[in-house]
């Protein structure tokens, strides 16, 4: 019950614990934002595994302001 309301309250995509592992191609830190490009990444969730050739991660500080985009 409490878990359901948690799921509903989370903004955007609700994520469980996700692990990912890959090799770092490039990184950048400017304007307080990190941009990573990883290669051959495995996203591991409890339920499933997603393999991907290239991932771009954009991340910045903040309690609720972190953003993630993938391509």
């Amino acid at each position, binding site marked *: 019950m409490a878990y359901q309301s948690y799921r509903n309250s989370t903004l955007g995509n609700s994520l469980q614990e996700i692990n990912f592992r890959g090799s770092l191609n490039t*990184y*950048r*830190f*400017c304007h307080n934002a990190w941009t990573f490009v990883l290669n051959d990444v495995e996203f591991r969730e409890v339920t499933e595994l997603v393999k991907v050739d290239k991932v771009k991660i954009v991340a910045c500080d903040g309690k609720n302001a972190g953003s993630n985009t993938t391509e």
Partner: protein
Amino acid sequence: MDQNNSLPPYAQGLASPQGAMTPGIPIFSPMMPYGTGLTPQPIQNTSSLSILEEQQRQQQQQQQQQQQQQQQQQQQQQQQQQATAQQATSQQATQVASGQASQLFHSQTLTTAPLPGATPLYPSPLTPMTPITPATPASESSGIVPQLQNIVSTVNLGCKLDLKTIALRARNAEYNPKRFAAVIMRIREPRTTALIFSSGKMVCTGAKSEEQSRLAARKYARVVQKLGFPAKFLDFKIQNMVGSCDVKFPIRLEGLVLTHQQFSSYEPELFPGLIYRMIKPRIVLLIFVSGKVVLTGAKVRAEIYEAFENIYPILKGFRKTT
């Protein structure tokens, strides 16, 4: 650049990049076993940032040093015998002696032998070695060669830089002006880190040899140049070299600090290593109980080697016998 002076006069006309450059007067010397496919021309003090040129220049130097070595092998052996005699007595840090001294050590960073009066400032670590067995008495040489672990160098790119542009457009760059007023950039080959300041000055750290440090600095300068800045390569200078080695026996640091107290400081509660400040050459050595030694503060490779050769007999005297 000073490397130009390292070639004897007959070879100076032969130093040339293999790339397409303005042809000079072709010189065929029967003493060049590699033949001349090259168009020799006067050595340029190039501040252009072509990495290909830089690598070719380094290969050129190695080839020429190799040729010199093969031609002068007999003379070198005689000089080595003299050098070892000199080494035992003198403390000279002349580059000739140091070039010969460094030849006594067999390591993957062995330098090629210079001719008398020839002073290569950057011994090339990539030269395939023609093995030369020096005639060293067993008591003179330690047989251990300190390995270079880190080289710090600086260069002036000669123009003001916009760090925000560099951080946004270059790969593998960090820029946090609130914390530090420079862009921190890294490259993988040679594995190094550079601090690039808005004045155009740059610090390059992490290389394992002088040539690698220079090559890395040129690669960073090239990156900056490709971003649109009129980058040059002025006043490249190696500021610090760090080496390390292992004497393979434990050391009585307490004894060492008692007898060499004007040079040593040993505070085991503060730091487990003894800090030995050698006067000549001016090198700081960190000496540990295990027998590992770190040498730092050198501007040239020979100072590291000389400092270690100076400290080795002292350390042998303080070997732990239990």
